[in-house]
């Protein structure tokens, strides 16, 4: 028997990294929001590595923060190590990476959810989507509760028909032995959605007191940590180091001797695993000539003895896992606390989504996170916030918010998913972005705060600070442009910097473009009259130093945006356009791009097809305009 559980604006199914951002965004935008999850103790759980950030992923966390999301603030409160990576490279690829206290991370996030006004938390297993007149109007739980809403966001992670695999052993399960969601997967199939089977995995966890750290290399955090959120200004979190060791010849031997028991090779695993995070057995088979692989030992929190063994993701049988661990220098006597495993799950074919993350088939139903074929907490959270924003806006009859590829990694991620789809769990890489130099770690706020403010997720106070920062940076750049210098004045400084002296007069902006000259030197020579904090100084320096490259990319972006702005009407009939090649017609019918820009990125749609589409649209628009 079912009963009426309640009516909301938005329902979020799942409370992982996607679910948390979706629910918070929706509630903060004023939508009455219900969050339903199988186990409330698993809110914001990190089933794999206890870390957040890194190249591209760290950029995404900053973007989430600039849009008013929670992940950045939460990790800033709960990190146990912070490192800026790639500092030897250009500013665009500097990347912040944090080790999290995974338990504290969960508790802090749960607290945030619980105190959110318009957000209701409810433990429950969702079995079914309610559809009326072809529109999604709610959900039904295992216990018979029926909840109604104008928009539903599914963030089911790896729970859909989840199956854990380890050696010869397989059983139905979500991550970390949670209950899997079986009926909902079935329900989605019945509703006509295409699902695929993906696979991922996690390494074993070991007891700290049984590690011989003397045989490993210490990897400390940064002495002066930076933060993910633009709001975090300082922290007194104590930092813990990670430790580096390597697999040995023995490890490889043990794996090779037991390959017949590896589900990857015995045929038990049917799901497609990601190339970028293969299991150790996969690595040893595919890169047989590599003598050793890195293993990082990472603490899972400050109040636990559990250590995560990064680099040893495996689905080998438990006894082999123990042998493998003990063949690694520093782990000879190690006690394994939890075994590694592979997990298979159902995911949606993401080309079934609009760029707003709403499903094309079922208006009102949104999906975000691993259910869309991605992997990674950050990728999940990014989709979560966008789905939450768009679900709330749908309820409020507002236009969908879609970021383009030049606005953020979030735009790249979602565009890739909905335009190209994915054959394996999708991970963001900086190399997926065409405009890497524009999508910097340092300027996520400049790119997205305006949007965050417009949609109501950035407070007026924070917005005012942002506007001030923008102004001061512009003013300082202008000041340096105007600051004329004579050779006699500046040459001593240039000489000290090991830079060639100037012969004619110049200005400080030109001087700062030189690779050997830093902002600090220029500022010492001619102190800024403005009250610039560290962020602003960094911004001035980057914008001046790399202006040449940045302008080149901006030129490309201008072209891109023209094409993105050419909207394709939703009711377009591709079969009625003479001249489109057959392949293009099929692809366009399937993806139904919202703009010419998106259409041009579909594999199989040629420039000629795009030209034809442009001509057709012009015709269509003129006819429509003529009709008034």
């Amino acid at each position: 028997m079912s009963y009426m559980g309640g009516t909301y604006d938005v329902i979020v199914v799942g409370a992982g990294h996607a679910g948390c951002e979706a629910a918070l965004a929706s509630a903060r935008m004023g939508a009455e929001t219900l969050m339903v999850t199988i186990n409330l103790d698993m809110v914001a759980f990190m089933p794999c590595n206890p870390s957040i950030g890194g190249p591209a992923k760290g950029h995404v966390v900053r973007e989430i923060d600039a849009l008013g999301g929670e992940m950045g603030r939460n990790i800033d409160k709960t990190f146990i190590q912070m490192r800026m990576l790639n500092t030897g490279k250009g500013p665009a690829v500097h990347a912040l990476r944090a080790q999290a206290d995974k338990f504290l991370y969960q508790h802090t996030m749960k607290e945030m959810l619980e105190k959110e006004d318009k957000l209701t938390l409810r433990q429950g297993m969702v079995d079914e989507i309610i559809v009326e007149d072809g529109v999604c109007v709610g959900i039904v739980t295992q216990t018979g509760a029926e909840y109604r809403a104008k928009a539903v966001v599914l963030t089911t992670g790896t729970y859909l028909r989840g199956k854990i695999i380890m050696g010869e052993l397989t059983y139905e399960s979500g991550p970390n032995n949670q209950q899997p969601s079986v009926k909902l997967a079935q329900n989605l199939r019945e509703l006509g959605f295409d699902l695929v089977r993906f696979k991922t995995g996690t390494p074993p966890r070991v007891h700290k007191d049984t590690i011989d750290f003397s045989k490993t290399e210490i990897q400390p955090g940064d002495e002066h940590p930076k933060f993910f959120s633009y709001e975090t200004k300082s922290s007194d979190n104590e930092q813990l180091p990670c430790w580096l060791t390597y697999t040995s010849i023995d490890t490889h031997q043990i794996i090779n001797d037991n390959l017949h028991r590896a589900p990857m090779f015995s045929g038990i695993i049917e799901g497609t695993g990601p190339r970028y995070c293969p299991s150790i057995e996969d690595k040893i088979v595919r890169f047989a000539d590599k003598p050793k692989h890195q293993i990082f030992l990472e603490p899972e929190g400050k109040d636990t003895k559990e250590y995560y063994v990064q680099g040893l993701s495996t689905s080998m049988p438990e006894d082999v896992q123990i042998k493998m661990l003990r063949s690694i220098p520093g782990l000879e006597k190690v006690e394994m606390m939890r075994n590694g495993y592979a997990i298979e799950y159902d995911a949606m074919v993401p080309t079934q989504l609009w760029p707003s993350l709403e499903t094309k088939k079922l208006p009102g139903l949104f999906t975000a996170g691993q259910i869309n074929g991605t992997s990674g907490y950050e990728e999940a959270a990014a989709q979560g916030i966008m789905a939450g924003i768009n679900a709330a806006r749908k309820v409020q009859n507002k236009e969908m918010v879609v970021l383009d590829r030049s606005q953020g990694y979030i735009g790249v991620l979602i565009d890739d998913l909905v335009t190209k789809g994915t054959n394996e769990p999708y991970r963001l890489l900086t190399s997926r972005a065409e405009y890497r130099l524009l999508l910097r770690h340092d300027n996520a706020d400049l790119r997205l705060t305006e949007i965050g403010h417009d949609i109501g997720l950035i407070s007026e106070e924070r917005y005012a600070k942002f506007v001030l920062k923008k102004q001061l940076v512009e003013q300082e750049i202008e000041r340096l442009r105007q600051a004329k210098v004579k050779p006699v004045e500046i040459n001593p400084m240039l000489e000290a910097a090991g830079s060639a002296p100037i012969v004619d007069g110049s200005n400080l902006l030109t001087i700062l473009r030189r690779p050997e000259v830093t902002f600090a030197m220029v500022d010492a020579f001619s102190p800024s009259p403005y009250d610039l904090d560290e962020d602003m100084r960094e911004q001035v320096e980057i914008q001046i130093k790399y202006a040449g490259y940045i302008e080149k990319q901006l030129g490309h972006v201008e072209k891109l945006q023209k094409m993105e702005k050419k909207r394709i009407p939703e009711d377009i009939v591709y079969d009625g356009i003479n001249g489109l090649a057959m392949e293009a017609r099929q692809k366009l019918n399937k993806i139904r791009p919202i703009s010419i820009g998106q259409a041009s990125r579909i594999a199989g749609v040629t420039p000629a097809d795009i030209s034809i589409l442009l001509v057709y649209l012009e015709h269509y628009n003129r006819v429509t305009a003529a009709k008034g």
Partner: protein
Amino acid sequence: MKEVNESMFSDTIAAISTAVGEGGIAIIRVSGPDAVQEVERIFNSKNKLTQVASHTVHYGHIVDPETRENLEEVLVTVMRAPRSFTTEDVVEISAHGGVISVKRVMDLLLQLNIRLAEPGEFTKRAFLNGRIDLSQAEGVIDLIRSKSDRAFSVALKQVEGSLSRKINELRHILVETLAHIEVNIDYPEHDVESLTSAFIREKSKLVMDEIDKLLKTAQEGKILREGITTAIVGRPNVGKSSLLNTLAQDNRAIVTDIPGTTRDVIEEFVTINNIPLKLLDTAGIRETMDVVEQIGVERSKHAVSEADLILLVLNASEPLHQDELELMEQIRGRQCIVIMNKMDLPSQLDLDILHRYYPDELIVPMSVKAEEGIDRLEEAISNLFFSGQIEGGDLTYVSNVRHIALLKKSKQSLQDAYDAAEQFIPIDMIQIDVRLAWEQLSEILGEAVGDSLIDQIFSQFCLGK
């Protein structure tokens, strides 16, 4: 909205807008926001183009901007936006119509901030900028489609064989280097050796040198290769090879052999009334053997798909064969001259059927054996050509110009990468130029780079959690 008065296109394009021949005048049309200022960079005249009035014609020379040497005597017409065919700034350069001179001018233009127009692009711009009437939309679409399909088959033909092998080699060097850079960036803690700027300089230099070699061979006498591709098709034993030999005998041109290309059809280069033709005999000698007939048919189809002009040879002493009807159906709408060979024998052909497909002036009675009717054929070819109906000839030719321009651009990108590496610019910025060079090489082969870099990263390096 800003777009109402402004063209939606921000780049400037160029193309040859007349057929390429050895006589007469050839016009190169340039359209886009930078048209006037860019052409000015290579135009030497009393008047500065950026300062002249709209719709005026100017005498002068095209000069090499590096050597300041006068290359071609030309007339240049300036038509400013919006009073032009595309509603953009348009410059038309009229040069003596020889293949070499047009090619030189195009070569220079494409090294400026100008790219080669896509098939039908001028018309497309004219339409999208509101210059062409709505009723013609369908026609514009047809034009783009047919021209693109033809350009595509021509482009494929152009990069067969050794050139594409070489370019693939160079692409591979670049994509390996790129993958290495990307791993350094995306997996900073991974135990992959860091790429040094010395390594990037070395690889850039290597590829630049190879591009130089390619450019040298490209400049050396490939001109005649760029004639109007003319396919001689027909059933076995109708006299195709004899026709080819007869035409070649009388008109044989200086044939430039291009080493490394393999041909599965017989090619002859001839000039008829100063029009360069590349004749393809599609089935060749071996067709007398029954087994090979099938292959002959396949080749015919292939040759037909890439030809600018088709010479369909029929045996007048036999009724039309089913194969011939099918062939006529297949090539309907293409530029074609029908040759009724063996007119010295009693005629069995049903002319009514032929007339359903072709007007009288395109049906030429001949006897190749008796050397009768050759004049009429030559006349028919020149008529088609000078009336501008054969326009494909410049496609083959232009796609060659396009390759050269892309090779030069790719080389320039590598030079930028090299220079940046010398100045210790961060690796992720140098990557931008290396990647551009890689994309430009890929464009020659008409291949989108897509996810191939990411595929390369994961096959080259062992990454994981």
